[in-house]
């Protein structure tokens, strides 16, 4: 890129200065807000007030923050799933489909087994089965990747579409097991009551959209953070991610590392889908298809730079933009959803773009004319 006789030169930093770690994300968010503000102003919405509204609806009001936490719960799981795979340079983008399968698998247990089980066992069974279903959904891509070196990107993506059609088929296309038999209205068959959790009230008498599964998701993040830091498994995956040749030299089993990481990633996404079952949905609910929490998990993981604890924060941040953005549409000065999406996009683009500045030193150098 040449600008006014100067060339932008990008050099990798040898050491990332401490200040860059703090300054870059802050500047990224500020830039994003400025860009978003310009959009708002151009479309005739007062930027500052809209931002305050967004803040209130997404984070600071009681219903705002509880909605956000509820949405963040499965998002933490898909974010962890993406981070887990991406850390190992395995670019699975199948979290969306694995999450649907988690919903289907969890619902199946919730319908078949949960009746005879107390909630203390029924709810975990749903989650565990969701995990198994999610892992099963990535088993074939994992095998292809580990044994034949087939790119996991395409195979996992394709399976997302299969999973999507599977859900649609169960609810709209057939009157099978997952379809509610008590009505002709196309909706899912409800799981047993013992397989459901009640929403958290946060010491009030209000009904919120946040469920105790939030703590399960946070615990998962903390556990992964700890486990991958101290365990041999975490060590081997880190070596493999850093240098596959070194892993080979040290006698590590790369096929096992690759396939197990993908399976765990699928399981994490599956748990996210199962949390939707024990929480708000209680059935196979095509509503989940509208939210895109699987793809959002990839963004969350990237924002968190694949750090498991940061995934929790990034998921809450991202979910807040969502809920806040949705609320703006129904305020008395409705902001079109497109603007909310632009805002989200701007935050993400700048946050990811900031990465360039964190890792590299960017300078302008004078272009020297070729003298030949």
């Amino acid at each position, binding site marked *: 890129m040449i600008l006014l006789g100067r060339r932008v030169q990008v050099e990798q930093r040898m050491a990332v200065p401490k200040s860059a770690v703090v300054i870059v994300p802050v500047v990224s968010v500020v830039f994003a807000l400025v860009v978003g503000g310009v959009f708002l102003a151009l479309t005739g919405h007062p930027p500052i007030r809209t931002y305050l509204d967004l803040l209130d609806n997404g984070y600071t009001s009681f219903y705002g923050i509880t909605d956000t936490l509820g949405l963040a719960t499965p998002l933490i799981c898909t974010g962890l799933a993406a981070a887990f795979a991406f850390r190992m340079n395995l670019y699975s983008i199948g979290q969306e489909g694995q999450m649907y399968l988690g919903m289907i698998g969890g619902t199946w247990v919730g319908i078949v087994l949960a009746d005879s089980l107390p909630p203390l066992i029924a709810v975990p069974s749903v989650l565990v089965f969701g995990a198994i279903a999610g892992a099963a959904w990535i088993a074939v891509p994992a095998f292809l990747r580990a044994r034949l070196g087939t790119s996991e990107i395409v195979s996992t993506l394709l399976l997302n579409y299969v999973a999507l059609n599977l859900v649609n088929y169960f609810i709209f296309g057939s009157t099978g097991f997952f379809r509610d038999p008590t009505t002709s209205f196309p909706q899912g068959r409800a799981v047993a009551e013992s397989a459901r959790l009640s929403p958290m009230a946060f010491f009030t008498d209000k009904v919120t959209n946040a469920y105790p599964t939030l703590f399960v998701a946070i615990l998962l993040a903390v556990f992964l953070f700890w486990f991958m830091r101290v*365990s*041999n498994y975490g*060590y081997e995956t880190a070596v493999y991610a850093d*240098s596959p040749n*070194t892993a*080979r*030299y040290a006698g590590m089993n790369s096929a096992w590392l690759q396939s197990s990481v993908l399976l765990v990633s699928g399981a994490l996404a599956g748990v996210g889908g199962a949390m939707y079952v024990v929480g708000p949905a209680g059935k196979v609910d095509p509503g989940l298809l509208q939210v895109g929490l699987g793809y959002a998990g990839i963004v969350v993981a990237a924002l968190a730079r694949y750090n498991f604890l940061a995934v929790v924060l990034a998921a809450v941040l991202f979910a807040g933009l969502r809920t806040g953005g949705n609320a703006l549409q129904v305020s008395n000065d409705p902001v079109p959803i497109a603007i909310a999406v632009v805002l989200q996009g701007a935050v993400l683009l700048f946050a990811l773009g900031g990465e360039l500045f964190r890792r590299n030193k960017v300078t302008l150098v004078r272009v020297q004319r070729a003298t*030949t």
Partner: protein
Amino acid sequence: MANLAIVTSASIQHGAGGVLALAARAVTKRFPGVIANDQVNFDLARGEVHTLLGENGAGKSTLASVLCGLYRPEAGQVVRDGKEVRLNSPRDGLAHGIAMVHQHFRLVDRFTVAENVVLGHKSLSFVLATAEIEAKVAAITEEFGLPLDPRAVVGELSAGERQRVEIVKALYQGAEILLLDEPTALLAPPEVEKLFLTVRAMTHVGKSVVFVSHKLGEVVDISDRITVMRGGKVTGSVRRGEADVRRLAELMVGREINIVSRRAKSPVGEVLLSVSQVHLERDGAAMLTDINLEVRGGEIVGVAGVAGNGQRDLAEVIAGLCAPQQGNVTVCGTPTAGRGAGGARRAGLAYVPEDRLGTGLAPSMSIRDNLVLTRVRDFLVDRKSALLEAETFIKQLEIKTPGPLTPTRKLSGGNAQKVLLAREIFAVSGARVLVVCSPTRGLDVGAVETVHALLDEARDAGKAILLVSEDLDEVMTLADRVLVLYRGRITLEQTGLDTNVDRVGQAMAGITT
């Protein structure tokens, strides 16, 4: 061949044919920490094949890159047809008819041969005149003996074919001078012969070729002139017919070969490593043939040889990283061939690979974390003792680093090598056999001394050490016995004091008496 004429390059004004096509005059090029080219003079006559010979890191690629315009030297000039030219980019080089085929190909895998050939070509119209291009490509492949299907997709071609694409591309762009950087590195012997025919076809029509290589054996036939580099400097230059591989080897590895040596102080012990009748093939080509060797506790056995004669395969077979088709490897009495790297280690083997940062160490991980790489790890990794160990090593071996948590990629080559050696010699529990490959490549004198002292110490502690090195000097200094590996076979074995440097040098070049 005994009569050899070594001409210092400064005294050569005109090469084989007379007219100088291209020359470097006192070219100096620095990289952080090294002078890759130090006042280098080099010239090339029209129609000549001038070989640039030298060990890895000698500065050959750097010189070729200066000549083609990829690098700009800090001092010195590039002269084309008697006039100084300033080349700011490979594009400028091409404008003067100079093109380089890099060691690592620069092709787009998804494009066809023809598309790759015209890629980056200046006068490209918006819509490709495919038929015309393909016809022209076909004409070039015909003339210079470079069989290629212009419509084949590059991603599906072999290394040899890709190289032809690079050459065709250079010729298509009108190159009169072709710089081939290590063109034979990826080729099988029959392909090398084909390449030589192409080179001859080019010089036949008046084009000139700079042929870069670190393989002594192959260059004598093709070259009109050979210039040897070592440590960024030109150490000598010989003409066709005067080339004597023995002296060339000496020019490559250094004039004086020190035989003031470190030898085993104590009598050798029992056989700890034995390799018998090992045969290894890769993709149908024999890499190792009938390898037999034994190493006893308390001795260093040196494997000498010019790069690419099977050293790496030998080390990998012993380390369990690749399984030989035939033969046995025994480490401390346990057969290990085909049991994987873990099997060899459990039997008592430690291995220092040639590629420190990309193989021996995990570059982004800390010194501490690298120390646990080859040890038996529990479910939870014990980093506490590794930290203490790291601190001890840093102090004892004077490793220059901010601390044990520094990533190894931030260490200099010498310090990274100390970490790697320390881990393999001291930290691996019970390893009595040590395989070490090119342990001092690219290190400065001080670090070389430390590494040699460490190996010496390990020998005196009773370890069986196999030292695989292309540095003949190093082998002669350290080894109690010397083997020469040539084209995957052990062609010479000499013991201790009767080691004859000349005979080793000859064997390295494939001459056996």
